[in-house]
């Protein structure tokens, strides 16, 4: 029975002073609702903002969104935005909303954003922002425009002996564990008569030896792994390794590479889109 109805019945039935009706969720003041919102994630808070007015006002509370922003969000802002761009008088909820929207940095070679659920950073590095051996040699590599990439173009390998893709990034990651992935596709996709098609004619050499992934951080963490590239015609995220950020006050520098440099065989038919770093 709702508290409103029970209060009405008490008023009708009692002749002496009635005890206060049992408070229901809809009767809680916004300050108390805010205490509950602390235990929900940002999407849940936003979803419940239209529940009633108390939830609406509680969902705007500074202390609620302060708890969702990473500890080092001021470093995030100064790394990503020019001072003039970012309005520091925004409320914490609007700061969270802004930071969780992808923003281009480093001359458009990277996009960064806060993961909405966890408040940890995500960094997406375009193939334009990677050091690809032989990228300027059109015998080996070319650029393909495609809407299958968030950067609108990918690097396509026809064939090569020495395959090496390197990169690095320095960023104030909030504390946590992160995984670095390479987004790759065997085969070259396009559209014909409105349908997606994938040309795998150039795909070769990836089943002979595995590719090697390496990752290292400025605080001495290292990860090495290898795997065979498979599954032509589909974009896959190949994990290169994990790293842990314990001190969010110091930007973490990560160096990473993907190699297949066994020169007894050529390899080719590979699209290299991006490197993605996101919370594990």
């Amino acid at each position, binding site marked *: 029975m709702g508290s409103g109805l029970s209060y009405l019945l008490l008023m009708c039935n009692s002749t002496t002073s009635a005890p206060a009706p*049992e408070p229901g969720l809809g009767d809680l003041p916004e300050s108390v609702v805010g205490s509950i919102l602390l235990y929900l994630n940002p999407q849940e808070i936003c979803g*419940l903002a239209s529940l009633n007015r108390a939830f609406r006002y509680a969902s705007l509370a500074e202390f609620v969104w302060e708890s969702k922003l990473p500890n080092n969000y001021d470093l995030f802002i100064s790394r990503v935005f020019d001072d003039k761009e970012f309005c520091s008088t925004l409320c914490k909820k609007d700061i969270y909303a802004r930071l969780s929207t992808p923003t281009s940095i480093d001359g458009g070679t990277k996009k960064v954003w806060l993961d909405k659920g966890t408040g940890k950073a995500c960094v997406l590095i375009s193939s334009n922002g990677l050091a690809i051996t032989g990228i300027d040699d059109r015998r080996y590599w070319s650029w393909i425009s495609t809407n299958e990439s968030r950067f609108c173009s990918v690097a396509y390998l026809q064939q090569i002996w020495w395959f090496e893709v390197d990169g690095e990034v320095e960023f104030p990651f909030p504390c946590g564990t992160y995984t670095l992935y390479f987004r790759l596709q065997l085969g070259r996709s396009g559209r014909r008569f409105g349908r997606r098609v994938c040309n795998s004619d150039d795909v070769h050499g990836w089943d002979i030896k595995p590719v090697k992934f390496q990752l290292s951080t400025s605080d001495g963490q290292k990860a090495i792994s290898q795997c065979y590239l498979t599954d032509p015609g589909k974009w896959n995220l190949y994990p290169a390794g994990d790293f842990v950020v314990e001190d969010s006050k110091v930007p973490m520098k990560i160096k990473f590479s993907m190699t297949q440099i066994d020169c007894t065989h050529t390899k080719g038919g590979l699209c290299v889109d991006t490197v993605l770093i996101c919370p594990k």
Partner: protein
Amino acid sequence: MSQTVVLEQNAVETQSITLKFDGCSSDANPSPIVNPENQSITIKFDDQASNHHTIPVSIPNVDSETEAAVNEFLRKHGSSDEESVRTDAMNDLWSFIERQEIGTVVVLVKFASDVKNFELLEIFCQRVADVIAKKTVEEVREIFNIANDFTPEEEQAIRDEHRWAFED
């Protein structure tokens, strides 16, 4: 339960201090820690009253079993500074609360907020949050019998405002 008080600068002139809080008084335990850098004195003293005789609280609108469980938590939690004892007390109360009707837990949230007991508030708020977390607004309204005090236009405007939270 022990309390910590920090006195700064020239606040302390005599060697004995009588401090009152929560209606009880106790003489200061003579083990002050002096910090010459900021001229502060930190005194830890034991609240004798609550160490061994936690006064049971009365909670309106809940049954006696629930009231007893909360008081048992307060007694246990307040009886020791040891992390393991306090964690056990929290786990016991949590197990009890998980079995209770959610309307009761909402009453307890209000109570914990009124008496400003943050350990209780944490447990009760977490439980309510767990129940409403994965539910739609309509489902929460139905479970808790909450009236929608928005017009359809207001509700749509709020949903539009939060579209960013659900975009990829």
